[in-house]
């Protein structure tokens, strides 16, 4: 494997949300076209106060989804319109490169 592989541009979508939304978010991102997702347990704080992850109601997750631009936009808009108003949710998106573009 000596010829350098091509790097394909994709998006990495990061969603930080209340843990209560995990199940729904997994279903959402699959339905909206993502081929995979990664979830991390996190704690934090923001406009809606501190979330120290001490107990159930206080737990947060960070979901990461590598996908193409259209899917990222679709998911971000869905999260925005469905959850932003009532839940502690933060979304951002960044450019990444991947080796196997057919995977995402």
């Amino acid at each position, binding site marked *: 494997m000596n010829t350098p592989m091509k790097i394909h541009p994709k998006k990495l979508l990061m969603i930080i949300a209340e843990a209560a939304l995990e199940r729904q978010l997994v279903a959402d991102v699959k339905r909206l076209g993502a081929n995979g997702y990664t979830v991390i347990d996190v704690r934090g704080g923001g406009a809606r*106060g501190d979330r120290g992850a*001490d107990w159930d109601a206080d737990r947060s997750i960070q979901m990461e989804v590598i996908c193409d631009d259209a899917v990222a936009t679709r998911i971000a808009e869905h999260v925005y319109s469905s*959850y932003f*108003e*009532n839940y502690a949710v933060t979304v951002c998106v960044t450019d990444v490169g991947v080796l196997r573009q057919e995977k995402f």
Partner: protein
Amino acid sequence: MDPVVYFFVLGFVARLLRSDLKLPGVLYESLTIYLLLAIGIKGGVELASHVYGAIAIQALIVVAMGAALPLIAFPLLRYIGRFDTHNAGAIAAHYGSVSVVTFAVGVAYLAKRGVEYESYMPLFVALLEAPGIIVGVILGRMSERGREMNWAALMREILLGKSIVLLLGGLAIGWLAGPAAIAPVKLFFFDLFKGALCLFLLEMGLIVASRIGDLRKAGIFLTGFGVLMPLLAGSAGALVGTLMGLSVGGTTLLATLAASASYIAAPAAVRIALPQANPGLSLAAALGITFPFNITLGISLYHAIAQFLHA
């Protein structure tokens, strides 16, 4: 006061003083699972030796009581407290359901005083988890004709939440296995119970103290509600228990259950079913006021009421 309460106070004071003491979240989760399972198993073992017909009728009455409690709470919250429908429904759902740990402290209270109670009470704990939440959510969603609710999903969320699964699962295991087969795990599930409860209460103290800010925001009305509602519900529970033929101990526990507000099953279900409600309000009242009130003063009050009604 039972020494288990001291652990709550220790956690509370430690966090107020801004100590770095912190129980790992996973320990809290593990203790929750253990306590729910243990309460269920204990109830199940006892259930094995009872007349089911009589219990079935009591069970129906208890479920009805659970469904009725939010109907007391909701109007108070909506019309006196002036909360919007969502928040009134959400808080009512918490108070309609029950706190397993408050129940456990009640059991410790009776044990210390040598008061007998119907040993199948854990069945009622399991039965009281859901109805209040369901009624509270219905009340909280009354105003929404436009948006549809996925009721099947909500029911699954509530009925298959870990609280009910572990309580009912434990009941079933205890009942199927019976006292003899449960004996080899008695040490683990029964004799260690109170120690585990101490650790759990330590964590509760830490949590309550770190939510003290929410409480301040919640205002006078909610603070009052957090004391008055358990008194109302506790008296109602004591009445139901007495009429239903429970002993003084059983009546005290039913009153304690009625007076307690959920902070395991209800927050999870309500967060999904009533997203517009501010979870800080329900938890400030349930955890910040009612839980400490019940474990320090409430239970002995309900005991007094039960004694009075049986006199």
